[in-house]
């Protein structure tokens, strides 16, 4: 295997909360012990419900939030303790696209200024003309004509704003593109356009993508591998093929079953199999396996010790001690 672009070792992001005069300090464990290797050119999906820690994990990797423990290795070098100033040059190689396409663009800057800004920060030796050429090239690459450079974000639709956000992130040709719910705010017909654009960019520039999303259908289409998180912990990690065709973790099985399909012959039955219950408070996670309170297969032993990720086959890993009894499709125990 080529050297991983990115490695996480037992990465943790804990937020101290509720500290008060008469209250002890508690920690919200947003990300709690993630081990991961991301190969160059790979598209890794990070999925789970709201509050599972998927966005926090992505932001910790970009050093937009500080990690509380563990290691982040970028091209083999640990960067988790680096100062902001020392991290800054790395940002050239790691960029992000946000969920809300309009809110993530400065309303007082023209599209040209927005897309040129990363070049002004990270590629200062470029002349004005060179910078303009790069901006126009990148805009063309994301499907926008050159004349948009003098217009402002509010003149564009959500889908077009997301193209601008992608152009801004891609103009430096980063090694890693983090996409945090990039299509969630878009209309259905526009979602497909943006998914296709990201696929094209990945193929043409060979970049690595971390794709954070609650939309499991989009992740299946776009990603090579998927990490499933629940309450900050890894539940399952597998190639997209294996995760969707043979999900091993009861949470993954429940999550996949909950996604509606537009087929009236299939969907009414799918509704009947919905995962029950709700996400427990992240301040008081269940002991042992954090998923056990919603798990149809939980037994007494699940409350005792937290299961670690264990190998199934071919890089497929699952954090469930009962995976052999459960089977790949969620058959009843």
């Amino acid at each position, binding site marked *: 295997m080529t050297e991983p672009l990115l490695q996480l070792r037992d990465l943790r992001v804990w937020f101290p909360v509720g500290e008060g005069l008469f209250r002890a300090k508690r920690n919200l464990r947003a990300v709690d012990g993630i081990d991961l290797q991301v190969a160059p050119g790979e598209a890794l999906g990070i999925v789970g419900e709201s509050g599972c820690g998927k966005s926090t994990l992505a932001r910790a990797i970009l050093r937009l939030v500080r990690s509380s423990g563990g290691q982040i290795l970028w091209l083999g070098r640990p960067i988790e303790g680096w100062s902001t100033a020392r991290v800054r040059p790395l940002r050239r190689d790691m960029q992000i696209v946000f969920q809300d396409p309009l809110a993530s663009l400065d309303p007082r800057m023209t599209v040209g200024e927005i897309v040129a800004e990363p070049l002004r920060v990270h590629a200062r030796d470029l002349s004005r003309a060179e910078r303009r050429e790069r901006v126009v090239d990148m805009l063309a690459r994301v499907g926008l004509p050159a004349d948009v450079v003098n217009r402002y974000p509010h003149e564009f639709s959500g889908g077009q704003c997301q193209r601008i956000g992608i152009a801004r992130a891609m103009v430096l040709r980063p090694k890693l593109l983090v996409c945090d719910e990039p299509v969630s705010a878009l209309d259905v017909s526009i979602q497909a356009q943006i998914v296709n654009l990201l696929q094209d960019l990945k193929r043409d520039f060979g970049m690595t993508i971390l794709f954070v999303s609650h939309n499991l259908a989009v992740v299946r289409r776009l990603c090579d591998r998927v990490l499933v998180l629940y309450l900050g912990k890894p539940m399952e990690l597998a190639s997209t093929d294996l995760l*969707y065709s043979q999900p091993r973790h009861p949470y993954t099985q429940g999550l996949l079953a909950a996604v509606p399909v537009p087929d009236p012959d299939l969907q009414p039955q799918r509704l009947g199999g919905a995962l029950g219950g709700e996400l427990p408070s992240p301040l008081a996670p269940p002991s042992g396996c954090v998923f056990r309170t919603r798990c149809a297969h939980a037994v007494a032993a699940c409350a005792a010790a937290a299961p670690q990720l264990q190998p199934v086959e071919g890089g497929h890993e699952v954090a469930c001690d009962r995976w052999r009894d459960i089977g790949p499709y969620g058959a009843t125990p």
Partner: protein
Amino acid sequence: MSQADAPVALDIDQLSVVFDTPDGSLAAVNDFSLAIRRGECVGVVGESGAGKSQSFLAVMGLLAANARVSGQARLGTESLIGRDVAELNRFRGVKLSMIFQDPMTSLTPHMTVGEQIAESIIHHLGSSAEAARARALALLEQVQVTDAPRRLDQYPHELSGGMRQRVMIAIALACDPEVLIADEPTTALDVTIQAQILALLATLKRERGMAMALITHDLGVVAGIADRVAVMYAGRVVELGTVHEVLKAPKHPYTAALLASMPRIDDAGTGPLPAIGGQPPNPRRLPSGCAFGPRCAYADDACRAERPSLIGPSSIEGTRSVACHHPLDGTRHAREST
């Protein structure tokens, strides 16, 4: 009694909504007609700006002040359009209820859950406070709120998003409505909670024989619980039929293209999605002829010249209506047609 001969609970006829704005008038809904029978759920699907919410806000009398409504909507024998607030309040929350997308902003933050459910029971049914509280508890249990007795005295901020939406549904059901309008009721929720709420709505519809309009942008959501589907584009219904007809064999190219462009959880394909090009039209500058024409693979001169009207079931077959000069033959599955 099968659904097809059940009495019509909500009859919307030629409804149009125009907003007067400083930049001129803007037609949000044009000639929207739909009859929903008792025990029937009609899914109303479309993208942002298609007019799906505005149609039903017009029915509820909840449009902004600069809206002009024409056409008719009847609840049983009562006409709803053009009535003043006091008259509308005899129906709203009683025979006709609505739930909204955002369960946080639709609940009052300073009243307990129990008070908010009891409020409409006391107001509309004249129950005593104790009787209303007992009914509120029963309703919370019916919408499967866990630990219901304790929830009665909690405030909305103490509940999760899914629980809040269940409370909204309990309030909507408080006076046993004949018609429930659900406007994107699960869009703000996680997919696992969405499945729970949809299963609950399906059960309530079945058990209570309510008529339901389910407004959503997600064709997967309607596939689970709707009996019929109306597809809207640029303020008009472009296709209407049973959920099987519309989703399994769409006749309108927009419906087919929308279905094909959705990535599906049960589709292992990895190639590019057959996306719909272009953008939904600006309602101020609708293209001539068919509004979907500029994005349609089948559009020709006839489509640019004349807007196709919605041709009803008598002219086609069965229960289907479609507004297209070149309807698809309907035998192909949407995903194979691209």
